[in-house]
């Protein structure tokens, strides 16, 4: 397993106490991207809600989606605001649109050279970054440029 993209010490994500996003985090642990989909109207939504914002059904599930996306926007962070990132140097965050899930967006780090030129609209693929030493263990979904 390669080193995590960001230095260790940031707050570890845990499922929401009310369980709303628990299937998402469990899915990442198993290297699957599970996003919320309405069983009534079959449309996707993200972040998770207790109700479908389109048809108002409460019958929502989490279904697998290929971790393939397109960069909708990005930022290169230079000024750290958490002690864990004090010596990180610049890092890239991408906002990734998932065309296979009605274009919902996920946020993650763009792997590779933090000084690389980033093109809005370019294709990316997901990379599961496991933090097995964390308590509780968790997995992040990171992104890298899709092979040409």
């Amino acid at each position, binding site marked *: 397993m390669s080193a995590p993209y*960001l230095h260790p010490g940031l707050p570890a994500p845990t499922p929401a106490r009310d369980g709303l996003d628990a299937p998402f985090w469990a899915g990442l642990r198993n290297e699957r991207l599970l996003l919320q989909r309405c069983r009534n109207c079959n449309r996707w939504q993200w972040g998770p809600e207790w109700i479908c914002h389109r048809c108002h059904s409460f019958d929502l599930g989490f279904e697998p989606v290929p971790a393939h996306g397109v960069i909708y926007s990005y930022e290169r962070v230079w*000024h750290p605001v958490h002690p864990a990132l004090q010596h990180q140097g610049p890092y890239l965050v991408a906002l990734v649109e998932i065309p296979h899930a009605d274009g919902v967006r996920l946020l993650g780090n763009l792997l590779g050279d933090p000084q690389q030129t980033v093109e809005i609209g370019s294709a990316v693929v997901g990379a599961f970054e496991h933090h097995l030493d964390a308590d509780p263990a968790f997995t992040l979904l990171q992104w890298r440029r899709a092979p040409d």
Partner: protein
Amino acid sequence: MDRSLRGRAAVVGVGQTTYYRHGSSPHAEARLALEAILHACEDAGISPTQVDGFSSYSNDRNDGPRMAAALGCRELRFSNMFWGGGGGGAAGALQNAAAAVACGLADCVVVYRGLAQGQFGRFGRGPAAPHISGEAAHTVPYGVMSAAQMFAMKVMRFMHDHQVERSALRAIAMASYHHAQQNPLAIMHGRPLSESGYDDARWIVEPFRLYDCCQENDGAAALLVVAADAAGDYPHKPCYVLAATSGGPYRAAAPVHNTPDYASSHFQTVAGRLYAMAGLGPSEVDVLQSYENFTGGVLMAMVEHGFCHPQEVNDFFTLGNLTAPAGRLPLNTSGGNLAECYMHGLGLTIEAVRQIRGTGPNPVPDVEVSMMIGGPMVTPVSACIFGSAATL
């Protein structure tokens, strides 16, 4: 039934404390808030015991009922918190106060905000907890935790879509610093900003360099709002509310950066209702205060309020166009959040009132219509338009 605030409320008093750099107030936050309220009452020539309504925003810690008790207010009739963070309520709290006095819920409502970050911690710091859940769990582990980091991607996309040049952002920052040089209250008074000073500053998060980002400050500010028909009883030239609106477009608060119209400041619907209520358009606005959390938010907010077309921003946003007294649209004429003080935008609302009175540090001649835009990129956002008696 008249379902408009137009001409039904007025600001009759404004007050503020000394403004401090973040963490350097010698006073507790609650005391700062009380002091600003006293100044606003003094400005209006009334006793603080006459205040019967309290309206704030951004989860202000100094809640109205406690303020009313501390001030010995004779009766509390209106106690109101505008939902949402940042400066989204900088005009929203005024909207609520205006609605309260227009409808007879209260007679004299104070709009206020107090901040002492030494006492309560800074906004621009990441969370110290070992675990995180909810929406933040989907952003913080990727290093996205400050306001600058939350909003940069909106501006990045807007700049990409409309080929915005950095000179447009620079003009916004320089206008604030330019105006602050005439304002002794401003934190950045005596510290002008040059083009190279802006260009050479370090990156915070692309596309924001240091001077694209607001300060964080300690202090407090307050405005007194009464029904319009009572405005003549107070010593200053009345400043009438022509419109105040708030909210956000469809699903603007969708979690984890899923706002449908992402590359925006969230004023798409608020601005239209604002002008409709005021019965005027952007070309009739004489002077503008537009909340700078980040320069890019100002740019998008001004586009959404119709001051220029998205394709024209590089021509419109120049220092000359944005400075008092003679610019095309003088902007943030007391120094704004960037250079006067970051009081979650309430300082901008006060400056909008001063421009109607003609008493600001950089008065624009013959102001009849003065506008304030609060809290771009959050949800809800808000905006208000003030007018002189001639506009009624």
